[in-house]
C-alpha cells in the first residue's frame, strides 16, 4: 500500500502557544484513521493544515506526495473536507449548493448531474433537494456538508467530528455512510470524534494526541499491547490511560467502569 498522507514534525504556534507540537504520522491509502484527543488538543488545527486552510509554523504535511504548502491546488483537488461546522450557505437550496461545490471542485460537465445525484443519494438528501439549507435541521445540514465532501470522489476524506450534534438515528446513518465509503477502498479517511465506540467500529488505526503531541498511534490491538496488563482493555481505558495516566488508574480501579455505549 502506498502512503497517502504523511505528516512530519508538524508544528503550529498561535503566538507562543503550540497548538500542534512536532506531530508525525502517516496514513496508508484506503485506511481509516480515528483521530482522538481532548477538546483543544489540536485535532481541528491539524486537519485545517492538512486541507491547506491554515499554514504550518514548522514541519511538513504531504498528501499523495504533494506538499500542502508547496502545491496547494494539487492537494486540495484530492481532499474532501467536512469542517466542524458544515460550510453551507443558508440562502441556497441543497441542490444549488451542491452544484456550486461541484463546479468549484472542477467536476466534469458530463459527470455533473450524476455526481450530484450520487452525493444526494449517498447522504439520503433526496427529500430535501429543493429546500433552503437555512430551513434544515442541524442533522440535515451536517449531511449536506458530508455530501459536499464526497463530491467528485476525492481519494482523501477529512471529516471533523461528522456525527456531533446528530440524533441517534442520524448518527447510525452517517456511520453507515462512512463505512460504505471505507468499504470501497477508494478513500483514505481521517475522522476525528469524541465517541470512542465509533472509532472502534470504523477505524483500523487510531491516533491520539494531547496538547498537540502524539501520545498514541497504532491499531487498537497494537495500543492494547503497549500497555502493561492492557491486553483486555477497552478503547476507553486505553484512551484514558494515554491522555491522563494518573486519574485513569484511579478511576479504572473502580469496578463500575465499563465501555460507554452511546445512544446507538
Amino acid at each position, binding site marked *: 500500500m502506498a502512503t497517502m498522507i504523511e505528516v512530519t514534525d508538524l508544528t503550529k504556534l498561535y503566538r507562543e502557544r503550540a497548538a500542534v507540537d512536532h506531530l508525525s504520522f502517516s496514513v496508508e491509502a484506503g485506511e481509516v484513521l480515528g483521530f482522538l484527543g481532548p477538546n483543544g488538543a489540536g485535532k481541528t488545527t491539524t486537519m485545517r493544515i492538512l486541507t491547506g486552510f491554515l*499554514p504550518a509554523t514548522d514541519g511538513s504535511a504531504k498528501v499523495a506526495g504533494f506538499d500542502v504548502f508547496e502545491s496547494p*491546488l494539487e492537494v486540495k483537488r484530492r481532499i474532501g473536507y467536512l469542517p466542524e461546522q458544515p460550510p453551507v450557505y443558508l440562502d441556497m437550496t441543497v441542490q444549488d449548493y451542491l452544484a456550486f461545490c461541484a463546479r468549484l471542485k472542477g467536476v466534469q460537465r458530463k459527470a455533473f448531474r450524476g455526481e450530484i445525484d450520487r452525493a444526494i443519494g449517498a447522504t439520503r438528501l433526496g427529500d430535501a433537494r429543493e429546500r433552503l439549507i437555512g430551513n434544515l435541521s442541524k442533522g440535515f445540514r451536517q449531511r449536506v456538508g458530508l455530501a459536499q465532501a464526497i463530491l467528485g470522489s476525492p481519494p482523501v476524506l477529512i471529516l471533523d467530528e461528522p456525527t456531533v450534534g446528530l440524533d441517534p438515528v442520524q448518527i447510525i446513518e452517517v456511520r453507515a455512510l462512512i463505512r460504505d465509503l471505507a468499504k470501497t477502498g477508494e478513500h483514505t479517511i481521517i475522522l476525528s470524534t469524541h465517541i470512542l465506540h465509533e472509532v472502534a467500529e470504523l477505524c483500523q488505526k487510531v491516533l491520539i494526541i494531547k496538547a498537540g503531541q502524539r501520545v498514541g498511534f497504532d491499531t487498537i490491538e497494537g495500543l492494547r499491547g503497549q500497555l502493561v496488563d492492557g491486553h483486555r482493555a477497552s478503547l476507553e481505558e486505553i484512551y484514558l490511560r494515554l491522555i491522563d495516566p494518573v486519574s485513569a488508574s484511579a478511576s479504572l480501579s473502580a469496578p463500575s467502569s465499563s465501555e460507554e455505549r452511546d445512544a446507538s
Partner: protein
Amino acid sequence: MRHTLSIARKELNVYFTTPLPYALFAVSTVFTGFFLIGVIQNFQRLSLAAMQFPQYLDSSFLNLTDLVVLPCIHQTGLLVAITAPFLSMRLIAEEKRQRTFELLMTAPIRPLDLVLGKYVSGVLILTMTLGCTFLAPLMLDKFAISVDGSSGIEWSTVRVAFLGLFLWACAAMAIGLFVSALTDSQAVAAIISLLALILLWSVGWMGQSAEAGVIQTVLSYMSAPNHLMGFVQGVIHLQDLTYFLSFVVLGLFLSHRAIEAQRWT
C-alpha cells in the same frame, strides 16, 4: 476563468435571494428622481428667465443634456459612494462569519479566482443600480426634441458620462472588496468603505478651503468628482481613466494579498 464565473454566478444568486438589491434599486430610483426634479426645476427657471429677458440670456445655452442630464449623472456619483459599501460589505466578510470561507479556501481554486469572481458579481449588481439612473435620460428622450427635430438628448455625451460613472462604481467596488476581506463583520466593512468613499468624494471640497499650493493641488487630484467631471463633459482624459483604473487595480491587488495572507499566517 471557469471558477471565477462559478463564484460570480453563485454570488449573484445569493444577492437576489436577499432583499438588499431590491432595496438599493428603490433607493437609486428615488434619489435619481430627486436629482432629476431639482435640475429640471432649475432648467425651467432658466428657460422662463430667457423668455422674459432675451437680451440678457441667450437661449441657445439652454441645452437639456448639459443642464439636466449631465448634472443628474454627476450627482449620481454620490449615490454610488453610498450604495457600493452595502453591496460590497458581505462579499468576503460574510463568508468568514458563516464559516463558508473554509469551503472556498479548501476548494481547488486559486485565490485570484475568488477575488475576481466576487468582484465581477459586485460590479454587475452595482451596474444594475446604475441602470435605475439610466431611466432619467431615457424618460427625457420621450419628451425632449431639439430645434432641428432630432432627440434633445446628446446620447454620445451621455454614454461617456455613464462610462465615467461605471468606472467610479468599479473603483468603489474594488475598495469595498478589500475592506470586506479584512474583517468578518459586515457592519464594520460597510462603515469603513463608506468612510473611504465619502472621503474620496468630498476631499476636493476640503481642498478648496485649503491654501493654494501643493496641498490644494494634491487634494484636488485625489477628488473623485473632479475626475468624474471630465467624463460628464463628454471627454475621456487619460488621467481620469488612470485615476479610476488605479483604484481598481490597487483594490484587487490588496484583496488578493489579504486572502493569500490566510495561507501564511
